[in-house]
């Protein structure tokens, strides 16, 4: 009986300790931002691996999500004779929800897992300890540029996703299903609000960028320095990021649109 109680206590304590280390790392990352400004090249390299290399998967997914939205939206809207509002449906669902959320999920799978594996291997091969031996803070030198790169790249990728998705919906709706081209754009412009919809979508993707990169870096930095530990940490990155994104999305949506 006491053993089981102790086991439960150990699990809770370990979780709390992990949360504490994660927040200490976040403090270190935020403090390291100041030292990043004199050396922007570090950031450029990370923007390349986190942002540029993710463009392909983001744009292709955005195009197909937009096209599917066009098809499915047309099916439902045609039952009410409201196919002119297809543009509103496609743009609203992309800009408000699918853009930020799907981009964040893809980002966690494409860039987050790579970040974790990279940093985990650096730890396993004792490169991080090597840096520390040379009196270089690995959080400032290795982790902070990656963190800022993820934070910057996410909203840009989400905007690309939404923009390409709207064009994909246009191809299917106007090109394939015969919705009027003028109605597609004018209804969209009349009903999508810059502040209400577009800005809130950007805010969402900023939050997701922060959280996803933070989780990926923490899992890499905190992993067991073995090959098994790295593989576990990579899995945890994807799982935790997905859960955090979907949970936060509900909270943000309730705060932004719940009135």
């Amino acid at each position, binding site marked *: 009986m006491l053993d089981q109680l102790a086991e439960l206590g150990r699990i809770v304590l370990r979780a709390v300790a992990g949360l504490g280390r994660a927040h200490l790392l976040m403090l270190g990352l935020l403090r390291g931002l100041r030292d990043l400004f004199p050396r922007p090249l570090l950031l450029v390299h990370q923007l390349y691996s986190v942002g540029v290399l993710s463009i392909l998967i983001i744009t292709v997914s955005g195009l197909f999500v937009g096209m599917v939205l066009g098809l499915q939206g047309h099916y439902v809207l045609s039952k009410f004779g409201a196919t002119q509002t297809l543009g509103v449906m496609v743009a609203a669902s992309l800009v408000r929800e699918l853009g930020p959320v799907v981009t964040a999920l893809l980002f966690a799978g494409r860039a987050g897992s790579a970040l974790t594996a990279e940093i985990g291997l650096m730890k396993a091969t004792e490169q991080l300890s090597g840096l520390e031996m040379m009196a270089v803070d690995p959080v400032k030198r290795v982790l902070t540029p990656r963190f800022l790169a993820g934070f910057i790249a996410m909203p840009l990728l989400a905007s690309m996703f939404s923009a390409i998705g709207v064009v994909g919906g246009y191809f299917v709706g106007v090109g394939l299903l015969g919705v009027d081209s003028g109605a597609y754009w004018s209804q969209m412009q009349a*009903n999508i609000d810059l502040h209400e919809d577009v800005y809130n979508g950007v805010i969402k993707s900023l939050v997701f960028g922060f959280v996803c990169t933070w989780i990926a870096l923490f899992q890499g930095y905190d992993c067991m320095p073995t090959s098994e530990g790295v593989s576990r940490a990579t899995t945890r990155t994807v799982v935790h990021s997905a859960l955090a994104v979907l949970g936060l999305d509900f909270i943000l949506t309730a705060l932004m649109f719940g009135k």
Partner: protein
Amino acid sequence: MFRMKTIEIMVGAFMAMGILALFFLALQVSNLSTTSNGEGYVISARFDNIGSLKVKAAVSMSGVRIGRVSEISFDDGSYEAVVRMTIDKKFSKIPDDTFAKIYTAGLLGEQYIGLEAGGSDTYMADGGAIGMTQSALVLEEIIGQVLFSKASEGAKNAEGAK
């Protein structure tokens, strides 16, 4: 060194593409290009019943949108709805005996305010009030009237048959 240069170029292209996408969303998808830049003048009108008119609904004249509803309030002295609307600056020649009516776009569509110009030579100024208004059509009231007239018709017919 060449490799570094290509990476820099690609990162630059990435940033440009992202910002371009954001501009596309702002200009082509949202209403930034269709909303006026906030310049205009405010006129008000009092209605007995505004139906489901909402703030930001269109104000149109001959079917052309010339402004938007900026505020809706309730006057608890006269029990009337007070609708304030912002008219674009360039439409400055609205006669002061203009007639305001609440229309519905389509059978179940959004409600908007239609203005019909009067014949006066003096024009509405900032803060002016429209004197003549007609309330929104409320579907239930129309149905009630039709039912009532049908019922009284039926009663009359029954009396005639006696």
